[in-house]
């Protein structure tokens, strides 16, 4: 039986809502029963993951109700906040002002306009080719060559990570493999699910089988990341029916997503370290750790996007 896009989405949505509701209730009951501080820490971590799941669901309800443009706007805001955080962490000089103004007020909106309008040939090269050439020119204009290369590199990296990479997530929603026309948003949901589940399972598994904490993320252990990643791969395979892939293709795809997500987390942790870690205070609700929350998708979104384009979109 072939389900329509609407029906498939509603089915997935209802299933996920039930799962999240169940998990949220369970965590709350656990939190009431225990007073062990270590367990409470894990429960706090799980809770933050569950909140992210609810956020994804909410985002998708909005995205489906209002269309792909709404999705592009949501991810554009995410990019904006991520870049804002990157700039706040980076030492900048007055001479960088023009380049950063261009980055925030021109590049962010333009990249997402290109993505939303499906102009693949341009959004795939706009930041890595055109801006890679234009920004150094803008920054050289002021004749301030102190630490020039470092400053240019930081702006470029900020744009690549928080705008270029993240913008490939809504770009997934614009893909139309044959036989899968108009279902791009479902593919994006699939992608976000696999990333989110691998993160959540890794945190859960690390709590139970934690031996060697990961150096990049002390909340996860090596065993936990391995078990969590495998579990997410199994889920990704079981969800093959919402993708244009066969079950074994879905298995390989979700393996690629999980692997890229873990590598992205590793790289972003290193970036944060080298910028000088700065603990965001509690209470900075919207902006706290945007980069950290996006670390799973920064690397995996372009990887999944291009694998799909390469193998499934003629």
């Amino acid at each position, binding site marked *: 039986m072939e389900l329509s896009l609407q029906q498939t989405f509603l089915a997935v949505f209802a299933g996920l809502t039930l799962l999240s509701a169940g998990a949220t209730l369970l965590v709350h009951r656990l939190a009431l029963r225990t007073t062990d501080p270590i367990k409470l820490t894990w429960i706090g971590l799980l809770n933050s993951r569950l909140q992210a799941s609810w956020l994804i669901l909410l985002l998708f309800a909005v995205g489906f109700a209002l269309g792909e443009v709404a999705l592009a706007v949501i991810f554009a805001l995410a990019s*904006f906040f991520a*870049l*804002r*955080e990157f*700039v*706040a962490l980076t030492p*900048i000089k*007055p001479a960088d*002002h023009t380049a*950063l*103004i261009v980055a*925030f*007020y021109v590049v962010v909106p333009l990249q997402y306009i290109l993505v939303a309008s499906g102009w693949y040939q341009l959004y795939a090269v706009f930041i890595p080719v055109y801006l890679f050439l234009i920004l150094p020119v803008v920054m050289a204009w002021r004749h301030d060559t102190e630490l020039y290369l470092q400053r240019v590199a930081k702006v470029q990296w900020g744009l690549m990570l928080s705008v270029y990479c993240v913008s490939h997530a809504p770009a997934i929603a614009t893909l139309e493999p044959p036989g899968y026309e108009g279902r791009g948003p479902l593919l994006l949901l699939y992608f976000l699910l696999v990333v989110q589940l691998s993160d959540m399972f890794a945190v859960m598994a690390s709590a139970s089988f934690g031996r060697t904490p990961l150096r990049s993320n002390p909340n996860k252990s090596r065993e936990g990341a391995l078990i969590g990643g495998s579990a997410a791969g199994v889920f990704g395979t079981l969800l093959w029916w919402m993708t244009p892939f066969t079950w074994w293709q879905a298995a390989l795809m979700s393996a690629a997503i999980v692997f890229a997500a873990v590598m992205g987390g590793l790289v972003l942790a290193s970036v944060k370290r080298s910028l000088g870690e700065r603990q*965001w*205070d509690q*209470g*900075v609700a919207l*902006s706290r750790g945007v980069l950290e929350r996006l670390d799973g998708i920064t690397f995996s979104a372009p990887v999944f996007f291009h694998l799909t384009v390469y193998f499934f979109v003629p």
Partner: protein
Amino acid sequence: MATFPVRFLPPIVWLVRLLVGAYPRWIGCAPSAVQRIYFANHTSHMDTVVLWAALPGELRANTRPVAAKDYWDRGGIRGQIARDELNVVMIDRARDDPNADPLEPLREALENGFSLIIFPEGTRSPQPLPGPFRGGLYHLAESFPAVELIPVYIENLHRSMPKGALLPVPTICTVRFGAPLARIEGEPKESFVERARDAVAALAG
């Protein structure tokens, strides 16, 4: 309709939050309706709006920033924001009558029960630590002994909008409120002003 339950954030406040965060940190005191003079470091044109936006809504209505007339009292959107949203107390930096007291509008606002936001450096210094303070704060503190003097440090903003820039680079800045400055009987102006500056600088750490 006068008491509509939801008060919407003024556009200027959410715009400031979107661009630079302006997250308040109440380190040495709690938000309170007590009459206060907030005095802060001055690094960019955004400071006035940022400090004001960092206050809770119910205090914002009763708190007036003090700002230079030559910059804010203009036509267009800037003047409109200054008058209608911020309710700015204009201070005349280039006054015609050299004998006129430039603090007169400030005294008037304090007498009417408003809290004030002032930048005692008198001009912008785009650097992490504030420069030397001028004497205005001392004179106000003498005339209004009951008003609390709250040091405020605006962090990170000097990088967002250097002198001469038209647009701010979005960043994350916090506004740190310190403990009320203690008053010392008979303290000379120089030492008071120095102490006030140190209180702001101490919040930078």
